[in-house]
């Protein structure tokens, strides 16, 4: 009985030390709170909105054509008479979905590669990280463009794979640096002496300690990926019409900007708001996990 209670106390103290503390600092950061609620609103709207709408993203009404915002079409229609609001919501599903999916790809590769490189001594690490440096020095967008034309570009799955395959590099760098610092701690040595395998040390001691930087960088990768997907779609290399994505909508809007300006303004607004909210969450997380440091970049 007594033993159990002690465990509870220990658990609650441990939980408070990093995650709880960071969470409290995060929720006290006004900009992060605004960003967080905004992002949740946008995501929910994109997920649920299309079920409640009486239009579909590819339903044309050529007779109606392009009309400005009205009660019937809240954000207006494009020149094929398609409802812009629903197209933005569906596009949001794609853009946010690709953002998360590609970030997960980048996260898995980056953390695995980085922690292995940082954990291994000397030569292996040097070779692994030199490779990252070499690829890092190349123009990202060009690599992604070549990757997207290589794969069947109509597949969204391959677009986020291609983006993920490029975005993992920074994650690997950050994780590698952190792991290298952690490896030198005496408690790692202690577990090794106690007979723990390297895999166990990585899983039990290294990875949990990487949580902070990984969470922060993950949050900052999502907007970067959303941006990259939109750039690709904007250049005609990403998601293909009639499917919708924020990059495509902004591209279509940009082409007709002189006659139907709302086609650019509304997608651009929601796109920028999303990036805004995600960046504020990322900045807030950075302050929350590492309040001493003065963060800038």
């Amino acid at each position, binding site marked *: 009985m007594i033993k159990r209670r002690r465990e509870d106390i220990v658990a609650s103290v441990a939980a408070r030390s990093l995650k709880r503390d960071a969470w409290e600092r995060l929720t006290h950061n006004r900009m992060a709170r605004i960003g967080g609620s905004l992002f949740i609103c946008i995501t929910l709207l994109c997920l649920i909105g299309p079920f409640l709408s009486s239009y579909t993203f590819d339903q044309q009404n050529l007779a109606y054509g392009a009309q400005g915002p009205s009660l019937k079409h809240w954000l207006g229609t494009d020149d094929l008479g398609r409802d812009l609001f629903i197209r933005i919501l569906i596009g949001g599903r794609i853009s946010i979905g690709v953002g998360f999916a590609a970030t997960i790809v980048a996260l898995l590769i980056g953390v695995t590669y980085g922690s292995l490189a940082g954990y291994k001594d000397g030569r292996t690490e040097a070779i692994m990280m030199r490779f990252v440096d070499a690829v890092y020095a190349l123009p990202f967008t060009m690599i992604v463009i*070549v990757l997207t034309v290589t794969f069947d570009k109509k597949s969204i799955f391959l677009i986020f794979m291609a983006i993920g395959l490029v975005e993992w590099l920074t994650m690997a760098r950050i994780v590698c640096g952190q792991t290298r610092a952690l490896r030198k701690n005496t408690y790692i040595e202690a577990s090794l002496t106690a007979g723990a395998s390297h895999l166990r040390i990585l899983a039990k001691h290294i990875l949990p300690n990487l949580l902070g930087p990984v969470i922060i960088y993950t949050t900052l990768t999502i907007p970067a990926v959303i941006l990259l997907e*939109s750039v690709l779609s904007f250049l005609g290399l990403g998601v293909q019409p009639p499917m919708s994505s924020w990059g495509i909508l902004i591209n279509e809007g940009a082409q007709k900007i*002189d006659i139907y300006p709302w086609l650019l303004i509304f997608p651009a607004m929601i796109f920028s708001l999303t990036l805004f909210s995600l960046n504020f969450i990322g900045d807030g997380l950075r302050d929350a996990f590492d309040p001493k440091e003065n*963060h800038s970049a």
Partner: protein
Amino acid sequence: MLTFIARRLLQAIPTLWVVATATFILLRLAPGGPFDDEKPVAPEIKKQIETHYGLNHSLHIQYFQFFGNLLKGDLGPSYKYSGWEVQEIIAQTFPVSLELGIWAFLVSLIVGIPIGIIAAIRHNKPSETILMATAMVGICLPSFVIGPILLLLFSLQLEWFNPIGWNYPGDRVLPIMTLGLLYAAYIARLARGGMLDVLKHDYVRTARAKGLKESLVVYRHALRTALYPVVAYTGPAAAGLISGSFVVETIFFIPGLGPFFVNAALNRDYTMVMGTVLFYAILIILLNLMVDLIQMWMNPRTRHD
């Protein structure tokens, strides 16, 4: 110093080889070839065209041919712009991209550094919040959003500039702003962080303690160190400016290298894609080397690395 440069240049060779090989393989994995048009050509004619460009050989022979020509400094003919060599296209279009990039970079430095420094000096004052919030807005308005909006405002509504083209000095204003302001925002954030960091150092306290004016402390003592992060960022920024220019050149119909590259990738213009990728890879490697040298010159502590 010279050994450092030589070592870096030697290291670049395997990198370039990997990039070239990877691009080669990826391009050949891509479905379709450069001469698969929508209008079907008679098979004999297609075969003849392919023989002309050496595409009839097996892949590994093409690979060695490409590298053989590359060592002679020949990137081969473009498949889509017949009669043009790839290096001719690059020589024609790259100066435009370069001009756009350099100006945009200068704008981002001239706008970004003062904003960051002022924000740092006014730390925890409302003016800092306003400046940094503006910078955040800049970061969240990527070039393909801000470009069309600037175009709508200044070309179509106010009619100050031509909406597209690259013929008169005025045509350059909007593209340069579109490309430069985003990086100005990043640089402002970096400069602010750097300056805040430096102002905590002991030598700054000493400078203040001996009674120097605040402006002298900031500009003579702190500024140089505060700009390290900005200088370190110029490498990635250069890579970003290049890919950013693809978008800006598309928006404003600028005859730079960007649209050629995107079209080449879409049309399986193998030699053109390979040539452009290699060209930019070399450019970025050289730029990074230059950035490292500038860093070593500015900060003696990095010299022994």
